[in-house]
């Protein structure tokens, strides 16, 4: 049974082409994915991300609980509203999900996890919570809109309720603020500045209309995917999953190894992997020949074996094909990719292709 967000009718009215995504009826585009992509890079676009799962974790023991649950360390969060990106690992060091957690108060953290992993995440979190004095509440009463792009914040601030706008106006990057039932985070999944705004479902249609009035263009999941890939951001289930550790998924930077005595789930497994030296790593690829990189294409690394493209696309900003690929750790600065039986040449780069509208590859 497929679910619909509170904005479903708006998507239809605005010409959204609807597809099933993780059990949700979501717009893939409203006409041209490439135009929507450019709109976010150059001005302001918005995405309905109400399908994502918001979870409030409250109680006295919430800090020790999250220090145990997550591979990154919430103790890094000293200021109210600060956000942290982290993996949630299983005992073997595989990634159950990647998520953002906001530090609201010492006894209240808000977590945003993926839509496709909702059921297993909630089951896992509840199971781990048994030993801790905390409460877990899914906030399925909240809708969520991501307003992204260089003019995204300015346009959103014009139409946010006055008190919410006041709370949001001075947010630094990677901070969030609550105002009544609304929450605004200066975060996103596009490599551009912007807000992710949570609000009561009953108010979301009017707010979406107000954003359209302010010149924020609706964008579909298609553009969201090309934007996140240009930004070098992983997609759960594609670039990493329960069979891959963060170390071979380009997410080593999200693991807090210190303090050494912090025992988090999966620590022993990934510590052993780190000490042995991971055999693979996640890199960025830029195709030098004409063509399009796609997930599951084979990567040939001369003298070191083979790897695989995990996510690939045509980059609308760079006008060439880019990809994330899991490859032998000894890879040099070039490799070949097998596209329909032809071996095409690709350059190996740090997996960030575009940030704040600018190319990061030279």
């Amino acid at each position, binding site marked *: 049974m497929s679910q619909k967000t509170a904005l479903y009718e708006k998507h239809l009215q605005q010409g959204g082409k609807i597809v099933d995504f993780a059990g949700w009826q979501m717009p893939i585009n409203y006409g041209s994915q490439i135009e929507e992509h450019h709109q976010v890079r150059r001005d302001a676009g918005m995405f309905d991300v109400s399908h994502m799962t918001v979870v409030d974790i409250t109680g006295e023991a919430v800090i020790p609980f999250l220090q145990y649950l997550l591979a990154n360390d919430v103790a890094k969060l000293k200021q109210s509203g600060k956000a942290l990106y982290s993996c949630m690992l299983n005992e073997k060091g595989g990634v159950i999900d990647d998520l953002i957690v906001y530090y609201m108060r010492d006894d209240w953290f808000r977590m945003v996890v993926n839509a496709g992993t909702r059921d297993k995440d909630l089951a896992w979190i509840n199971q781990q919570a048994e030993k801790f004095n905390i409460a877990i509440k899914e906030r399925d009463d909240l809708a969520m809109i991501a307003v992204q792009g260089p003019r995204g914040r300015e346009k959103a601030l014009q139409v946010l309720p006055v008190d919410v706008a006041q709370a949001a106006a001075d947010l630094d990057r990677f901070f969030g603020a609550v105002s009544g039932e609304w929450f605004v985070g200066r975060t996103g999944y596009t490599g551009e500045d912007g807000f992710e705004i949570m609000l009561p479902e009953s108010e979301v249609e009017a707010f979406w209309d107000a954003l359209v009035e302010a010149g924020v263009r609706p964008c579909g999941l298609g553009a969201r995917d090309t934007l996140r890939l240009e930004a070098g951001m992983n997609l759960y289930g594609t670039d990493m999953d329960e069979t891959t550790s963060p170390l071979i998924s380009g997410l080593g930077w999200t693991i807090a190894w210190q303090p050494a005595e912090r025992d988090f789930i999966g620590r022993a497994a990934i510590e052993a992997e780190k000490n042995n030296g991971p055999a693979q790593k996640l890199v960025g690829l830029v195709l030098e020949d004409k*063509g399009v990189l796609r997930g599951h294409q084979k990567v040939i690394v001369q003298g070191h074996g083979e790897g695989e493209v995990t996510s690939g696309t045509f980059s*609308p900003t760079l006008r060439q094909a880019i990809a994330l690929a899991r490859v032998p750790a000894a890879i040099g600065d070039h490799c070949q990719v097998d596209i329909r039986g032809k071996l095409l040449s690709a350059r190996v780069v740090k997996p960030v292709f575009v940030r704040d509208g600018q190319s990061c590859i030279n």
Partner: protein
Amino acid sequence: MSEIPTDLRYTKSHEWVRLEEDGTVTVGITDHAQELLGDIVFVELPEVDMEYTAEDACCVIESVKAASDMYMPITGEVIDTNQALVDEPDMINSSPYDDGWIFRIKPADEDDVEQLLDASTYESEIADE
């Protein structure tokens, strides 16, 4: 509603075909097909001088979303390809029946063109999708 010129012939797999005065045949994909594919970013054109049988996969069209095969509408030999698509594949989106033509063939039998769908039959085909 997508455009379906009445002077062309069509296939169920959304290719269009035009019999030229010199007996050659120009091939492209329909307006409906380009709408389904979305923004086209790369075309792997067939090789000139290659001979194909009707319904052979002969060309790959890649949109931002995915790669799709294009099929040979009738048996024949490829005599020309639209090189302008190498740098501007999105001409297939903006002008599917003119600037966005894909390749030209010398048909094994000119009469094969007549066996393809006419505009009204193609229109009812896509209405049933």
